[in-house]
């Protein structure tokens, strides 16, 4: 089904009641996909959020008189006199959202956890009344429960015009307690130090960071299209500052991405001799740590005014810097003996593989282009400094040089997010973000079955 991705998960440990609850949540998630598909339109930078003939200037002008125009949860349409008007999602999709809310209420009644039940009821209400902030706060305050569940308009990646409008998505998963405990330890190690702040910047301190690794049962809407392996919410900086944030790693999606994309990329990009030094298990661990570090570091790089300053360039810098800072943090972990050299190498290798797969994914799905541009920037630094030596599409990395590049890139990205202007960001992306850096690898990458 379009806009939906399901994963097989083990439900042996669930009671009959919990299985029914899970079914209701999965069904609710499935019903959100058609709403997302009505928002999506790759032909226009503003997707279907704005009239296709409306210019950026016209929208900005209308927003000055009516702030609802650039509200994250409204469609912008023309009325009979061709004036721009804003229609809230919850009114536009009233009919479609009612059965979804009903399913959430039924699931809430089946839950043994009062807090999770309260959280579900709030989600249901928010879908119908548009008060998403209230339900987000309830979710942030709720302790981790057995089920991981999100539904609603959340991510802004479809709106390439203003990076404002949120697209619908949902996911359902079951907590992997053992993996979550390991991730918690990792988080504590990363967050232990106090980073220096660039003076003059409006850095936001995230009050607390919850963490969970889920065995995901379903992705629906935007997340199914993007196949995230992890996420850190909320996106609203002010909410994050006041109530903290929650990080989720989607194990099922990660396993699938690792098997279909990251590992096959490793096998075609690196020399056979180099490949023999790393087992599949070591590389999977590297892939998991790569995304875990990325999501943890999202909490460390929040600047109050970054989105306004960098506009459509913001997600490129935000996503890339979270990867780069995550890897940079591993340097200290290596020195502390929390990671060994082989483990750090596996993280670096998987980062390089991810760079290639983001580019390949962006060919099929232009909505993930900002990740691919970020990947191209990293790749261009690695090639320029000789950290990756490219010989007819096959490579052998120099880990010491890779780390030097990461350090250099980290300082540059931090500047752009902390203080940089829109023009500076554009210049940086124009200079380093070309997809040409991937092209000589293409004949080899084309051998990956999932990419043909």
């Amino acid at each position, binding site marked *: 089904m379009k806009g939906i991705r399901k994963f097989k998960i083990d439900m042996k440990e669930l009671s009959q009641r919990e299985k029914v609850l899970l079914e209701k949540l999965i069904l609710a998630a499935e019903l959100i996909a058609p709403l997302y598909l009505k928002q999506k339109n790759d032909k226009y930078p503003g997707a279907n959020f704005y009239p296709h003939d409306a210019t950026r200037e016209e929208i900005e002008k209308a927003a000055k008189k009516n702030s609802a125009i650039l509200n994250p949860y409204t469609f912008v349409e023309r009325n009979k006199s061709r004036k721009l008007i804003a229609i809230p999602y919850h009114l536009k999709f009233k009919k479609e959202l009612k059965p979804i809310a009903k399913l959430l209420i039924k699931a809430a009644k089946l839950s043994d956890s009062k807090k999770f039940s309260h959280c579900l009821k709030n989600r249901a209400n928010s879908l119908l009344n548009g008060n998403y902030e209230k339900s987000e706060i309830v979710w942030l305050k709720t302790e981790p429960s057995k089920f991981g569940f999100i539904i609603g308009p959340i991510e802004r990646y479809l709106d390439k015009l203003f990076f404002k409008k949120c697209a619908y998505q949902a996911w359902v998963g079951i907590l992997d307690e053992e993996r979550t405990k390991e991730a918690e330890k990792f988080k*504590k190690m990363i967050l*232990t*130090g106090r980073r220096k702040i660039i003076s003059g910047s409006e850095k936001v301190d995230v009050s607390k960071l919850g963490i969970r690794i889920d065995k995901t049962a379903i992705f629906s809407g935007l997340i199914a299209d993007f196949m995230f392996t992890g996420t850190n919410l909320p996106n609203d900086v002010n909410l994050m500052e006041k109530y903290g944030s929650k990080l989720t790693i989607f194990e099922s999606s990660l396993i699938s991405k690792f098997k279909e994309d990251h590992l096959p990329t490793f096998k075609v990009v690196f020399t056979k001799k180099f490949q023999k030094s790393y087992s599949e298990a070591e590389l999977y661990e590297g892939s998991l740590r790569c995304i875990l570090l990325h999501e943890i570091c999202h909490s460390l790089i929040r600047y109050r005014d970054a989105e306004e300053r960098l506009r459509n360039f913001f997600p490129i810098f935000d996503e890339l810097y979270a990867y780069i800072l995550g890897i940079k943090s591993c340097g200290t972990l290596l*020195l502390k*003996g*929390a990671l060994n050299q082989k483990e*750090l190498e596996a993280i670096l290798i998987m980062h390089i593989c991810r760079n290639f797969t983001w580019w390949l994914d962006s060919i099929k799905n232009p909505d993930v282009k900002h990740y691919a541009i970020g990947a191209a920037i990293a790749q261009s630094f690695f090639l320029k400094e000789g950290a990756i030596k490219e010989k007819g599409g096959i490579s052998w990395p120099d*880990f010491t040089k890779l780390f030097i590049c990461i350090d250099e890139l980290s300082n540059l990205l931090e500047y752009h997010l902390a203080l940089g202007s829109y023009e500076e960001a554009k210049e940086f992306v124009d200079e380093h973000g070309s997809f040409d850096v991937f092209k000589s690898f293409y004949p080899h990458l084309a051998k990956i079955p999932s990419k043909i």
Partner: protein
Amino acid sequence: MPEEKKFYLTKQGLEKIKKEYQDLKSLKLAKTKGEIPKIWHSEDINPEYLSFREDLSFLETRIAELENILKNVELIKPPPKERQNIVNLGATVLAEIDGEIDEFTMVGTLEADPSNHKISNESPIGQGLLGRRVGETVVIKTPIVNHSCKTIKIKYNKI
């Protein structure tokens, strides 16, 4: 004869090891005192016997490890006052590593737990900082990462 490896432990760490040793010894005694499953089950080896042997072997290995630790243990003690401005085992160090301020306690490998700010003396940071004084900067080198590390403050709590 090669010198046996020393195990550095805090008082609490030593108590923990001693307790584990006593617990495992009692468990082994209880296991061998009880009825031992028969080796053969008709013509096949009895799976219960295999499981019993496996458990016992695991216990014996761990007990031997703990005996070796207890034989070669060296208790971490705070140095005399005049040497408390030098990083040694048991020191809590405030340091600047690659621009980040961090605080950790230097312990032996057995008690190392970086997520709880306990760093092993055998880690690159441990090796680089041991014997350094307040204000000293040292470059800690590994095959991948080279970071400068400045010691800002050293303190010794009662161990």
